[in-house]
């Protein structure tokens, strides 16, 4: 259980990194870090393939990032038809990881620029699903 709660439409459920979803529900964006080599992963991994260990810990992403790119999606895949137009973006965060997420619909696409500072925040949707969004 876990990932069925993530996104506008989920595709899978069980994963060892399901605490990612629990944290998100509690308002925190967390990822994993290898306790042995210190590598911070995103997406979170339950295992470190470099150290061949599952000795990882959860660390918080503070959400302060820089937008690297974005797109306004007018035609979405199946299950997203009623959600368009929406904005996807990739930002780089202070922790050294990049995250792909939604850019808040509250932002006018004309006000979006590559290089702008964003804040990634957890969002609970009306249907109970959780995601994260980039806000200004």
């Amino acid at each position, binding site marked *: 259980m876990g990932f069925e709660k993530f996104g506008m439409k989920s*595709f899978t459920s069980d994963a060892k990194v399901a605490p990612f979803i629990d944290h998100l529900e509690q308002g925190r964006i967390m990822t994993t870090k290898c306790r042995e080599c210190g590598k911070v992963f995103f997406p979170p991994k339950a295992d470190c393939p470099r150290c061949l260990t599952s000795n990882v810990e959860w660390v918080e992403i503070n959400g302060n990032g820089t937008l690297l*790119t974005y*797109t306004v999606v007018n035609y979405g895949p199946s299950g997203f038809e009623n959600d368009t137009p929406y904005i996807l973006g990739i930002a780089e965060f202070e922790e050294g990881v990049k995250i792909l997420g939604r850019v808040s619909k509250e932002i006018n696409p004309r006000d979006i620029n590559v290089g702008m500072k964003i804040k990634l925040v957890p969002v609970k949707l009306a249907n109970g699903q959780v995601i994260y969004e980039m806000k200004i």
Partner: protein
Amino acid sequence: MKGVAIVGAGQSIFSRSCGMSVRELSFEAYQEAMAGLNISRKDIDASIICSAPEYDKQRTAAALISEYLELTPAPTFYVESVCSSSSAGLRVAWSLIKSGLHQIVTVIGFQKMSELTSPEAAERMSRGDDIMFGSPLGTSMPAGYAMYARAHMAKYGTTEPDLAAIRVKNSGYGAMNTKATYRKALSLEEILGSDVVCSPLKRYDCCANADGASCIIVASAEKAKKITDKPVWVAGIGMATSELNLSARESLTNLSCVREAARQAYQMAGSGPEDIDVAEVHDCFTIAELMAYEDLGFARPGEGAKLLRDRQTYLGGKIPVNVDGGLLSKGHPIGATGGSQIRTIVKQLRGEAGETQVENARFGLIHNIGGVGTYANITILTR
């Protein structure tokens, strides 16, 4: 050194709806590839069938195609790397022949996208991203490439007309390709005025799904000389992979897997970008062709748009690219696309490309990508 040759190459007509079965479509490509060769079906030691099986209605089509072409009891099996499946198939054929296990191998690529409804196809495509961290947010192929386009524009000043100019070039050549789905030359205004799919990419920046098949016959040097007067030699092959999650990649302005695969292929061929006379690049989206110019070394990073503005990728330029119209004109039957690109270069190197012939072409390159820059296959051929 010249160990493995392509002795035959063919493709079906690519179309939005072919009106025939996958086996019949495959025959069309096989028939063209085998035409004029001094072999029969009994000389084929193995067949490699390339498709993205999630788009196939028929499960395990390899055996069925083998049955229809009467290639049994020779071994047959699938090779898949989505849109670059048939180039990966050539890689496996090359290895089988180099190892001495087989002498003559056929690589058949196909996809019949019309078997699926648009929502069915879109549903499968949406699962092409990481289903835990990407797909649930509504990612897609055009959205992925659109984010590369936006990052490239921000870093280098590339413009929407720069991207549209790629479609202008390719649609012009596509109009001359009797096997292409789209055979109409488009103007810059038509392209820029088309619907925005995922900004900054518009309808005409994107290739379309299609039905089609391709076939490549690969042989050892010893056999090749007996089969045909015009063998085309595999000078170099390279293959590399990038992370599936775009967020896990280092760069969003070029494709690292292409750079690595190209490095391998150039090294094996003992050549460099300056030696290539004609190239087929995977223009699933206009931005993909632009990045290919830079990742293959035809232009320096950020100077791809200038290369096209100077008309260097047109016929008569320094490095003509996609003079068969590319995926943008031909359409994109996923598993068949790499084989179609290889066929175009084989025809160029044999001097059989008609009005789009690059004069005296000696080295040709094929750039075939799977996913949003996830799998890269680079192949260099020579005569």
